């Protein structure tokens, strides 16, 4: 069983009072317990079971404008005494920074709503095994599938965030995740692909057959890929790749990148950075949302933000430290975005495929090719050639490149948004990117 609120609060308040006794003028602490149980299958047989029980805390102490932090997984009071003493010692020796402080008192979250983030259900390993048997049977139905690896994880977490201003709150969350990775083979090639489902509530998890079938089909259709020539071409990003564009956008508007001057979106608030029809939301209070939260990692309340309105950037993602530096109030985004998404476009998936006589549909990218200082983008990619709305043949060993400043202005979105991850996008078309191939 995951540790209860009372246990976590007791540890938190022990740390806060000890820090105060040792000379901290302010302090904050987070105590977290997370228990995961995973079963893995490979080729329809049990391959691995994994149970993890992680308990840890991290404390930040302030002496005036000096700050330092420690974290530990050893929560015995003996050990905490030594560590907090060390933390205070380090704090004293760390130079002052005028922007160091806890959040302003009036910004702390006051009410903690039940966002339906915790499912009491406990799924035993043999039930996970039943699910995986069904999944793997579906995934390995086709002879072209030569290897299947599937996994089922139940996670239960609880945490308490407390600070010397009197904030003390936390709540339980749960997740149930199933995934399947399949390898398909023909005479010319071997390819891998996957499908995955993750939900707060067990009963919402995708059907095992459906997941297995999807994983297998997505892999088989990649067999015998071709390499194409280098050219300028319209790119369609599958939803699982399109969300990455949104993640890069979020990194580029984080207040730390803005205050350090290392973002291509610095000073762009109230300017048009996307095409007209684009709206971006970050909505923390979505029921059962994979990114939902009641407050950010500093305890600051989080409201829904319309980050982009009709193509115009409206907000940065602001935490306390960088907010003070930029002379802006924290909007509760310490630790990043919550449920971040592009609003649906007004064209359906089929029409999007049909919008160009020739385009590339990208299902996977590899490499770390997003540079938020310059906006340059260049990654390896796998996908399909689309001609007149039809999937023609699979493509690999190509790269796609552009600059986000231009890419953002050339986005068209389909109307097929789903909330499968914490960050979500409809299928996305971007014109004017360069493919490098033969």
């Amino acid at each position, binding site marked *: 069983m995951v540790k209860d609120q009372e246990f976590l609060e007791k540890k938190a308040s022990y740390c806060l009072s000890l820090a105060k006794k040792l000379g901290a003028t302010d302090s904050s602490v987070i105590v977290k317990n997370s228990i995961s149980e995973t079963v893995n299958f490979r080729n329809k047989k049990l391959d691995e079971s994994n149970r993890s029980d992680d308990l840890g805390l991290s404390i930040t102490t302030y002496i005036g404008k000096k700050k330092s932090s420690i974290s530990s997984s050893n929560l015995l009071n003996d050990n905490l005494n030594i560590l907090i003493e060390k933390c205070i010692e380090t704090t004293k020796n760390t130079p002052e920074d005028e922007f160091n402080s806890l959040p302003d008192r009036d910004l702390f979250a006051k009410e903690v709503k039940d966002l339906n983030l915790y499912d009491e259900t406990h799924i035993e390993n043999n039930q996970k095994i039943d699910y995986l048997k069904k999944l793997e049977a579906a995934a390995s139905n086709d002879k072209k599938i030569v290897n299947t690896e599937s996994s089922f994880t139940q996670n239960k977490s609880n945490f308490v965030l407390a600070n010397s201003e009197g904030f003390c709150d936390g709540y339980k969350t749960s997740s149930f995740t199933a995934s399947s990775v399949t390898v398909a083979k023909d005479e010319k090639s071997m390819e891998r692909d996957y499908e995955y489902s993750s939900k707060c509530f067990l009963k919402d998890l995708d059907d095992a057959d459906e997941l297995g079938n999807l994983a297998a089909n997505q892999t088989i259709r990649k067999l015998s890929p071709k390499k194409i020539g280098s050219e300028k071409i319209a790119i369609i990003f599958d939803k699982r790749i399109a969300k990455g564009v949104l993640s890069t956008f979020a990194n580029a508007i984080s207040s730390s990148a803005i205050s350090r001057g290392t973002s291509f979106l610095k000073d762009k608030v109230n300017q048009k950075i996307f095409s007209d029809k684009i709206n971006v939301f970050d909505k923390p209070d979505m029921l059962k949302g994979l990114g939902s939260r009641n407050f950010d990692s500093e305890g600051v309340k989080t409201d829904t933000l319309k980050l982009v309105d009709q193509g115009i950037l409206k907000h940065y993602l602001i935490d306390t430290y960088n907010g003070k530096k930029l002379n802006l109030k924290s909007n509760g985004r310490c630790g990043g975005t919550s449920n971040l998404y592009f609003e649906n476009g007004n064209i359906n998936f089929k029409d999007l495929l049909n919008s160009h006589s020739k385009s590339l549909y990208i299902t996977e990218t590899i490499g770390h090719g997003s540079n938020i200082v310059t906006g340059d983008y260049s990654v390896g990619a796998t996908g399909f050639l689309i001609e007149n709305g039809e999937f023609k043949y699979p493509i690999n060993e190509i*790269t796609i*490149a552009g600059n986000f400043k231009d890419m953002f202005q050339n986005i068209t979105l389909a109307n097929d948004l789903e909330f499968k991850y914490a960050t979500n996008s409809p299928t996305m078309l971007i014109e004017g990117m360069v493919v490098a191939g033969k």
Partner: protein
Amino acid sequence: MSNFFEKSDVSRKEAESIISDTLQKCDDGELYLENSKSESILLDDNKIKNSSYNSDLGFGFRAISDEVVAYSHSNEISKNSLKQSSENLKSTLKSVKGTYNHEIPKSNKKYYDNINPIEQKSLNEKIKILNDVNDYLRSKGDKVKQVTANFLGEQKSVEIIRSGGETLSDVRPLVRFNVSVMVEKDGRKETGVYGVGGRQSYDSYLKDENWKSVCDEALRIASVNLESKPAPAGEMKVVLGPGWPAILIHEAVGHGLEGDFNRKKTSAFHNLMGQKVASEGVTIIDDGTIDNRRGSLTIDDEGTPTEKTVLIENGILKNFMQDRLNARLMKTRSTGSGRRENYRHIVLPRMRNTMMLSGKQTQEEMIKAVDKGIFAVSFGGGQVDITSGKFVFNCTEAYEIVNGKIGSPIKGATLIGDGPSILKEVSMVGNDMMMDPGIGTCGKAGQGVPVGVAQPSILIDKMTVGGTKL
């Protein structure tokens, strides 16, 4: 060395008996105990942004029967917690009928000293160097707009207790010093990053104001990039510089030669043992035994002493990298490559220091041999799709080559290639093998472990460059 049972309600003897009881009739398994202390001190935007310290303690209990691995980990080293883990393992492996393999090689060799680098230099000294770095770089002119520098230090004590009570232990120091600088000219911003590190004290890397040369290198890369023009797009010849660009080797062939992917036949290399996978003259080894290197280990995380493993010899595929599980199932021996990020993770076969050995040609000859292509000197990260064999890496410093001469710098671009065939495209191997500066971390299945790479300059006849200029 840590005494893991000192403050626990379970004695070493009792723990040993729980281990032996749990692992009887299993084929393999162990209790892995770990105590790590780490620090991070960061200067950014003219200020010490972060000084933090982490102390982590825990165990991972593993039981293996045939192909099935059962694993359980916890932070609490207590009787209750060990017994709960034991029950958890037993419930997964219901009907075991194996024979525990007690055999594990021994060695007295050590590849680093038992030191705690965090304690060897005071906080004030570290802060002073970071401030000096900031002042030094910002004195280099107005174009320097941002400086980030940090120290990362760690001491990790591990102990492996096997069935029957056999115990193996290791204390591993690790440090890293990193500098990142952003420059701006005419509204254009570029970044340069450089770092040094390994399994010694901070001072071994920073003495004689060596931190200045780290700063100079970061600034040089950033300044070169200010002048860069769009990179070309398409297939062309590529000359790679020596040292860190060997992450090409790591991504292109290293991962594909790890035992697990080959046992499962999901690696593009699984049916190529004994065959020619690279040009003649190409020899690649994975070596855990080089003194004080970031990827070196006295013993791996299963207790096997590390070694120098020949992967490809003169173009022929010779060996995979193995941990105990995959070695047993593939009827071979562990190469001391069983590693894990920490006690929270299961062991996987991983790389240590992956190196392509020197050949006879010079870098000059390579450049001369290229009519149209690029010369790549420094890289960011890379990634590989094991199954299709396709891999990428990102240039952070590169130049065009026109008619045998190095031309203008070009913008960062991704290079993509095919692992099993790329080494056959190597037409020249340089005489200038160099190790990387000690900064690499390799990710696999969500686990990061420190690694090293090395190579001489090489000429690759055909690779796709992912630029924007058609």
